[in-house]
């Protein structure tokens, strides 16, 4: 009921409703974007884009799902788009540097340490995030939503527009793939 009122107020372009929306969901949107993008400044940019998109297309929100589900969907789509663009740029930079067109120095980003990770898990979580980055998108999204956003399988299914069974399958394969990548990492560590 409260959510319905909020949506109605947003559709009527009430500034106070937009402020309430941002206050309620900014951390959720930022944290989800950060899990995919691994960079605070870029995650903030994406989070801003998400709220601008919500402001511009609130009339398309039919209320079939929860507002948070819709926000998760927009955030994930935008974050994955951002990541794809970044990877394209990186590949392009590598190619141009091979031909000597681009003299820019390619710097690998430092290991990502999620700010919410406990002190004793910082190092391990950085290794895990590197492996998560290599997962196929569906597996990555399911794993991150369950692990860092503490969502249930049903909620993740709603967000991804898939069945609970499909999400269970994504999680199972994600764990399998991560185990394999971590095994390679720790075997070659020494």
């Amino acid at each position, binding site marked *: 009921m409260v959510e319905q009122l909020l949506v109605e107020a947003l559709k009527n372009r009430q500034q106070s409703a937009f402020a309430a929306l941002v206050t309620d969901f900014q951390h959720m949107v930022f944290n989800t974007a*950060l899990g995919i993008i691994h960079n605070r400044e870029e995650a903030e940019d994406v*989070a801003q884009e998400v709220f601008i998109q919500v402001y511009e297309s609130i009339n398309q929100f039919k209320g079939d799902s929860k507002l948070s589900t819709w926000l998760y969907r927009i955030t994930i789509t935008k974050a994955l788009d951002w990541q794809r663009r970044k990877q394209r740029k990186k590949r392009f930079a590598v190619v141009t540097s091979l031909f000597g067109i681009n003299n820019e120095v390619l710097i690998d980003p430092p290991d990502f340490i999620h700010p*919410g990770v406990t002190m004793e898990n910082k190092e*391990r979580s950085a*290794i895990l995030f590197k492996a998560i980055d290599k997962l196929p998108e569906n597996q990555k999204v399911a794993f991150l939503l369950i692990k*860092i956003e503490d969502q249930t399988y049903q909620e993740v299914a709603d967000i991804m527009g898939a069945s609970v069974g499909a999400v269970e399958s994504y999680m199972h394969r994600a764990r399998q793939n991560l*185990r394999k990548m971590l095994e390679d990492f720790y075997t070659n560590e020494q």
Partner: protein
Amino acid sequence: MKTDDKLKQDIEATLNSLDKVSRAEAPPYFYTRLLSRMERKRVSALSRVLQLLSRPVVGISVLVLFLVLNVVAIRGIMSAPKAQGQASDAQSFATEYNLNTTSVYSN
């Protein structure tokens, strides 16, 4: 080389390293920065429209279109009374020769 047990321990510990993660918070003044970005976006959209209109090709095209519409409107106004006149001529002709009846059998 690591032993199998140590390797398994490392893998499981790493896989579970996000289990107690807390949610990262958006930076302070997020809403203020968001509003200023929206304002910048609005201003830049407006300036893009103005920039487009200030281009000679677009400006001249808009002017020509305006003139053509005016000419069409003026011609329409000028020809309207004539059409009305023609219609009334036809009406008087029909009345004169009793052609107003709907059936040839009616009187």
